[in-house]
C-alpha cells in the first residue's frame, strides 16, 4: 500500500499517522504540502489531525480550499481511498467529500481521553480486520467533534450503512457519548465507502509500547485491502 499524507499549515499528527501506516504496511508514506496541485500516484490519501490554519473561523474551513484539495477530490472521484482523522475529518466535511459538519463539543471543552468505539461494519477497506460490533478503546483529542447533519441525512447514512464507528460504553451499549455527536456517530463513510472520516485517533492506539493497539486494525485493514 502506497500512502500520501497531506500536510496543512498547522497539521500536527502527521508523524503519528505516518508511523502507524508504516507499521502496518511496511512502507513509509510520502508527505504532500497543502500548496501542491498534484498528488503522486498512491492507493491511499490521508488528511491527518492537527489545527490546520489554527482552527480559526471553523475547523477545516480554510484547509478545504487549499490547492491540494482539488487533487484530493479528483482522486476520490476516481475511487482512491481517502482517510481523514480528526482535523482531517473536519476538512473532508468542509470540502464536501463527506456529509455533515463538526460542531464544538457539547461540553464546550477540548477532551483528550480514551473512548470506546463500536465498529458498525467490517465490510469496508478500513474495517475489514475488525468484527462488526467489536468495541475498541482509542483516544480522542478534540474540541469540535460534535457531528451534526440534518435528520434525513442521518437516516440516509444509517440506512445505507455508512456509519463506520459509534461512541459506546465499554460493553458496547449506547450511553457514553463524549461530545454530543448526533446518534453517537464517531466516523462516517461516503457513498462508495472509499472515503472515511473519523474523530478519534486510531494512530495513537497502534503501538504496544504506547497505550492500546486497538486502532491498529484500521491500518492493517487498509494494508490488506490495498494490497
Amino acid at each position, binding site marked *: 500500500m502506497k500512502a500520501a499524507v497531506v500536510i496543512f499549515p498547522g497539521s500536527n499528527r502527521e508523524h503519528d499517522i505516518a508511523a502507524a501506516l508504516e507499521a502496518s504496511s511496511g512502507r513509509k508514506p510520502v508527505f504532500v504540502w497543502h500548496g501542491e496541485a498534484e498528488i503522486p500516484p498512491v492507493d491511499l490519501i490521508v488528511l491527518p489531525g492537527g489545527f490546520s490554519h489554527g482552527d480559526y473561523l471553523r475547523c477545516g*474551513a480554510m484547509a478545504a480550499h487549499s490547492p491540494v484539495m482539488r487533487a484530493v477530490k479528483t482522486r476520490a472521484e476516481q475511487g482512491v481511498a481517502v482517510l481523514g482523522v480528526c482535523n482531517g475529518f473536519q476538512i473532508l466535511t468542509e470540502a464536501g467529500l463527506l456529509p455533515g*459538519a463538526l460542531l*464544538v463539543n457539547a461540553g*464546550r471543552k477540548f477532551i483528550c481521553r480514551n473512548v470506546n468505539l463500536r465498529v458498525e461494519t467490517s465490510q469496508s477497506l478500513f474495517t475489514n480486520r475488525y468484527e462488526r460490533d467489536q468495541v475498541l478503546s482509542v483516544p480522542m483529542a478534540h474540541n469540535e467533534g460534535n457531528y451534526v*447533519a440534518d435528520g434525513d441525512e442521518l437516516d440516509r447514512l444509517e440506512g445505507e450503512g455508512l456509519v463506520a464507528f459509534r461512541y459506546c460504553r465499554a460493553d458496547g451499549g449506547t450511553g457514553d457519548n463524549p461530545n454530543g455527536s448526533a446518534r453517537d456517530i464517531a466516523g462516517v463513510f461516503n457513498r462508495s465507502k472509499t472515503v472515511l472520516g473519523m474523530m478519534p485517533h486510531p494512530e495513537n492506539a497502534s503501538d504496544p509500547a504506547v497505550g492500546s493497539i486497538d486502532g491498529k486494525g484500521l491500518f492493517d485493514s487498509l494494508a490488506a485491502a490495498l494490497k
Partner: protein
Amino acid sequence: MKARVRVTLKTGVLDPQGKAIGHALEGMGFAGLGEIRQGKLIEIDLAERDPAKARAQVEEMCRKLLANPVMERYAIDIEG
C-alpha cells in the same frame, strides 16, 4: 466600504455556547431570559466603493468560506 457579516447557527442546531451563557447569566441572577444564541461577527474593510458590488463580493465570501451551509446562515450589512 465596511461589511459586517453575522454568522449564526441555524435554528434547530444545538448551541452549547449560547446555552452556557444563559446558564451563567441565570447563575448571576439575571431573570426573564429566553433563548441565547452565540454567533460570529466578521468585519471586513473593502476597497470596493459600490455598495451593491460590495455586497455581491461579500455574499460570495460567505458562500465559499465564511459560513457553513450545513449548520449556519449569514446576514450582511454594508456600511459607508
